[in-house]
């Protein structure tokens, strides 16, 4: 196979085109990040845990598929205790607004069936509870027992006021009862849960990434020259910013592609930082070698020759990694799609940046300072 054999492209003279492309991509990404933002997953936002207890053993796969048909956003379903319990975790913090009114309507009609002629008024409603006021204590008593029979969680504020909880569980119960008719169940609990990535973990991760970038800067500065290290780190920022921008631009647009930011996606970005520097270092290594050998050649030539002669390995090394991430993207299912997406596009952009961003920065530096780099 002879691909890119005897390649001789003047990359440096075309750097301005690359600047425009990179600048546009970064700008678009930043714009989208500012306007559309990112979609954070349950790992960051937290959500609601609902434990259900069934009368008979339940098939977890069936429960999972039934629950995923509800509008619960991203969910996690697993067995809870023995095989009659399931734990549902949804990213929702409270009942969605449109459903909320529906549930209130149902409660209202339930009340009207026994207290049609009494005066009902909603005295207070919050996102997860509603208070009904009755003028007659007897009616209130009847209504409360009726609501409890229907499976609502109620409590009495005083003689005339009944608080009815409008939890996600209440809504799920209604929907699920029709889907699984022959297996009765009750709600064990419904609790709000905080994010998996707490503030400390977030802070830790950010600090460790900054330190890692500093480490790269110092090591490359020590092994090459500071300007090389600077170019490498700029290229890294370039890659991460554009990929992050893509997450923001494409979120929710491609069906089947889950671009929520989760722990896994963060891991993908960290991998990207680690990996995308590799290509850059390979080119740098060859520039260093060329500068050592061709002391009199211009920096422009040395960089161009280095990029051309390493082109094959730059492309092939990226390609092998790209194969695996593309396979994960295509066959890995929804769980891995965010991870694989970040890597697939990150690697492509990383390869591009090690040729068109990192090396031209060195050229610009030499051009501007008129200093010669020597190893």
């Amino acid at each position, binding site marked *: 196979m002879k691909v890119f054999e005897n390649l001789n492209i003047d990359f440096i003279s075309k750097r301005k085109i690359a600047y425009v492309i990179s600048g546009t991509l970064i700008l678009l990404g930043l714009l989208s990040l500012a306007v559309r933002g990112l979609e954070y997953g349950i790992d960051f936002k937290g959500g609601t845990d609902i434990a259900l207890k069934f009368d008979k053993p339940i098939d977890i796969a069936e429960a999972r598929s039934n629950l995923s048909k509800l509008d619960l956003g991203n969910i996690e379903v*697993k067995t809870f205790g023995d095989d009659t319990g399931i734990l549902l975790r949804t990213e929702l913090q409270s009942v969605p607004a449109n459903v909320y009114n529906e549930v209130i309507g149902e409660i209202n009609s339930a009340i009207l069936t026994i207290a049609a002629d009494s005066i009902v008024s909603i005295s207070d409603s919050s996102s997860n509870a509603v208070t009904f006021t009755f003028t007659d204590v007897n009616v209130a008593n009847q209504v409360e027992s009726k609501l409890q029979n229907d499976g609502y969680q109620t409590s009495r504020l005083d003689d005339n006021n009944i608080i009815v909880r409008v939890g996600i569980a209440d809504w799920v119960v209604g929907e699920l009862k029709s889907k699984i008719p022959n297996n009765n169940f009750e709600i064990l609990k419904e609790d709000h849960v905080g994010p998996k990535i707490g503030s400390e973990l977030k802070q830790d991760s950010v600090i460790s990434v900054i330190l890692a970038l500093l*480490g790269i800067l110092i090591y490359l500065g020590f092994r090459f020259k500071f300007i090389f290290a600077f170019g490498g780190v700029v290229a890294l920022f370039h890659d991460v910013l554009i990929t992050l921008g893509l997450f923001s631009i494409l979120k929710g647009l491609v069906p089947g592609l889950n671009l929520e930011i989760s722990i896994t996606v963060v*891991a993908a970005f960290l991998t990207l930082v*680690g990996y995308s520097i590799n290509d850059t270092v390979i080119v740098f290594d060859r520039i260093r070698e060329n500068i050592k050998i061709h002391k009199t050649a211009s920096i422009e030539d040395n960089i161009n020759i280095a990029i051309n002669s390493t082109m094959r390995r730059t492309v*092939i090394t990226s390609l*092998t990694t790209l194969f695996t991430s593309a396979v994960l993207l295509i066959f890995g299912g929804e769980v891995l799609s965010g991870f694989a997406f970040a890597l697939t596009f990150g690697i492509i952009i990383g390869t591009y940046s090690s040729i068109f961003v990192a090396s031209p920065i060195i050229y610009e530096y030499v051009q501007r300072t008129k200093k010669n780099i020597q190893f």
Partner: protein
Amino acid sequence: MKEFRFRLLLIVGVLAFSIYLLYPTFADIQNTNKIEKELSLLSEDLRKSNPTISEAEINNMLLIREDSLMIKDPSITENREKRMKLGLDLQGGMYLVMEVNTSKLLEKLAKDPDDEFTAILEAASAEAQITDANVVDILATKISASGKRLSRYFGSIREEDSDIITKLKEQESDAVTRAIEIINNRVNQYGVSEPNIQKQGSRRIIVELPGVAKEDEAKRLLQGSALLEFKIVKEADFSVPIMNRIDEVLAANLNSETDSTKIDVTDTTNAKDLTAEQFAKEHPFYSIAIINPQSPYADAYVKETDKNQVMAYLRKPEVKNVIPDNAEFLFDAKPFTNQDGVNIFRLYLVNKEAELTGGVIVDALANIDPQTTEPIVTMQMNSEGAREWARITGSNIEKRCAIVLDNAIYSAPTIQGKIPGGSSRITGMADMNEAKLLQIVLKAGALPAPVEIMEERIVGPSLGQDSINKGYNSALIGFFVVAIFMIYYYKKSGVIADIGLIVTIISIMGILAAFHATLTLPGIAGIILTIGMAVDANVIIYERIREELKTGKTSKAAIDSGFVNSYSAILDSNITTFFTGIILYQFGSGPVQGFALTLMIGIATSLFSAFVVTRVIFDMLVAKGNKINIG
């Protein structure tokens, strides 16, 4: 062939070691299958022989059989402990709901709490249990209902109630956040186990741990509050009179309670003639808390069976009145066994005020004392702690200093002289596991308030079987795509690279197993990705060799200079990435750490494959006179 012997041995060694590390995982899979098969046969038999048998009975029988199988073959448990665990997403694990006891925190914060306060707090925490409402709110309402201002117990006199409530709430939520941080640290120090730790509601914490082995240990790890204190033990001439008073008070009290009708007065001066029963009546305290008159110390020896009784005595209000405010009684953490085989706890009277607390500890290490072969924990204090420690030890020479952990005394060594260095050690642990646990708990810090386990369940995997299958399949496909591409592009040399790839995968898995890492689906995806990256080193070397061949070198010379000239590029790029890994591992926590570990292992193993495995194969081929074919 001689020149290759060392490298070949090295490769065989690495492979053998990896397989050795992976063996428990294989064995555990087989054991689990075997046990499952046996259990399903048994349950079939049971159903057939006794059709009316209830589900619960069958489950019970199955459990008994499983236990007996595990006991019969201890290697099953051993392998299970050493296997590579599957994460919460693939296999599920243990789900615990813990509650931070914030009323204990309020009790600590309160200034001169009186009985009324204690009663109100108790009622408030009971109410909070039911309603999950904020303890501070309930307490505040109750205190103002009793006609008092909050500033009686908290904050300063000038502060408004509402300000105090805000401050207390802040401290309450701080305590929960700290508890989460500490639990996080403790769990993570146990290895890379990918737990889930989340806050639930206002003061509960959900902890999910993959796998369910070592259940008790995990619970102790999560619950132990590990408040470490150093307290000076009171000397005999201080404590004996107090114990005498306790004995008297108890005797008077018990006699008036049980024997109020009894009028006879017994002669108490003639103690040695008393029968055991009479002695017990006259000296209720000394009869079960025995002082050795020969010993210079006034430690009371209490049988394990009497410990609760003694504690009940010490809780009595009339006894509390006798004990001075600056002293308290504490038991040994662990009993010793006397020559009659009876477990005995020592009861010490110590200063109530701790000289120093565990907050000054910067490092702790569990170790075996080479002299006594006893497990010990050594710890290092920060400079401030060390200075205090020197002062304390200097002014208390010849006295004993009790090392108190969660209100139990681990050891009470006599201070021989001033200790300037700030390093101390704790003895008295039952075994090395306990010492390790103590080390983790000391390093991670003390919980700000006690936590209680409210709920505990086994949860199944969070991913469906189809998601898991998709993950596995894509991993396999990814591997084959890379492997086939290498052969297609580099022909024979591609095959060599693929051999290196297989060595890489086996050693990655082996090293991960050695770290007790937990495999999650994203973790597997990460390993697959390392496969794509692992061949990079080979690609760089091959391309270089190709370049060298083009300049007209012989196969051997081209290979030599190809490898040598690639070193700097490969090493520089990988060391840079490795750096990132070290920093992320060191400063990151939780999932970031797990990721960093996989990254570093991937780099190390793929470098080994490229520089040792492929190299030796090339060298051997050239030595045999084969022509090198690189695409």
